[in-house]
């Protein structure tokens, strides 16, 4: 339990640190990604032991979907916005998603051979 708490504190610190660095530069997004890259570099160089964050990260990764339950259910409130956006909205989501899924699956399948 203590290892999870320590690991979670480190993960939060990297996320908040990334946001604190990027916000003054005018970037509205990407703080957690900066934290991700910083943690990756430290783990890769061995300056931060993997064991220190592993338990907390495993828990977070196992339940990646948990924080988006609320926002996903909240889509029921977007009926009007959806109607305004028109059928192009749904068609673009389907086309864009399928294009990526098929492109990556077929090319990666060839690479895997």
């Amino acid at each position, binding site marked *: 339990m203590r290892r999870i708490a320590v690991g979670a504190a480190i993960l939060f610190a990297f996320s908040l640190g990334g946001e604190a660095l990027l916000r003054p530069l005018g970037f509205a997004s990407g703080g957690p990604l900066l934290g991700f890259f910083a943690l990756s570099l430290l783990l890769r160089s061995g300056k931060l032991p993997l064991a220190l964050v*592993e338990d907390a990260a495993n828990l977070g990764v196992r339940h990646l979907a948990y924080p988006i339950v609320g926002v996903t259910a909240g889509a029921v409130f977007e009926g009007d916005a959806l109607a305004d956006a028109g059928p192009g909205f749904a068609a673009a989501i389907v086309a864009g998603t399928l294009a990526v899924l098929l*492109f990556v699956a*077929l090319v990666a399948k060839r690479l895997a051979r």
Partner: protein
Amino acid sequence: MNVASILWPTVATALYVGAAVTRSKHRLPPLLVAAAVLAAGLLVLQADRETYRAAIRPFAWLLGPQVVALAVPLERERRRGGVPPESLPLLAGSALVGVLATLGTLRAFHAGKVVERTIAPRAATSALSIPTASALGGSPSLAALAVALSGLGVAVVGPWVLTRLGTRSPLARGLALGSAGHLAATASAYEESAETGAAASYALVVHGVLTTAVVWLLRACAVL
């Protein structure tokens, strides 16, 4: 503090835990079950939209550390030699394909600039696409909906589509699920195997960054 600010997060948590614990019985992604039941509850109880949004806002704080946490399985996978270097150009290509397919379809439907700016970054994970859509002048709520719909769609039907395509390699399945379906599909990928999940995590992050870069590039070229 009103009742809703405690009620909705508690209900969302209870539904997610319940759906995850009973997964072996219903075999559906916990996100799908929990979100569907919660959405039905919101409609039946005629919940207030702004009160609900304020109540679930604390969940967003967890997204950042979870994105950071993806570094751990990736590092484990790197030490194992799991994700080959060819994956990077593949994901660069997929980011371009995803944005262009989305924009092309929107233009065919004459959807307008605001919708284009809202949905163009959709192929990146919500931690990136929602602020990007907002910064471009799009609608953050519609961006959230677009990410949720594509993520859920891939989480539910993605594994089936990949099996039908004959894509059995855990690496290929993980890369496809993570790049097309964000966090929701990455969660599904981890349920297949640790190797599939690690590849999906890698794709989620790399594809997300590259998609955001493509969108800003198109904006700089006045295409968006």
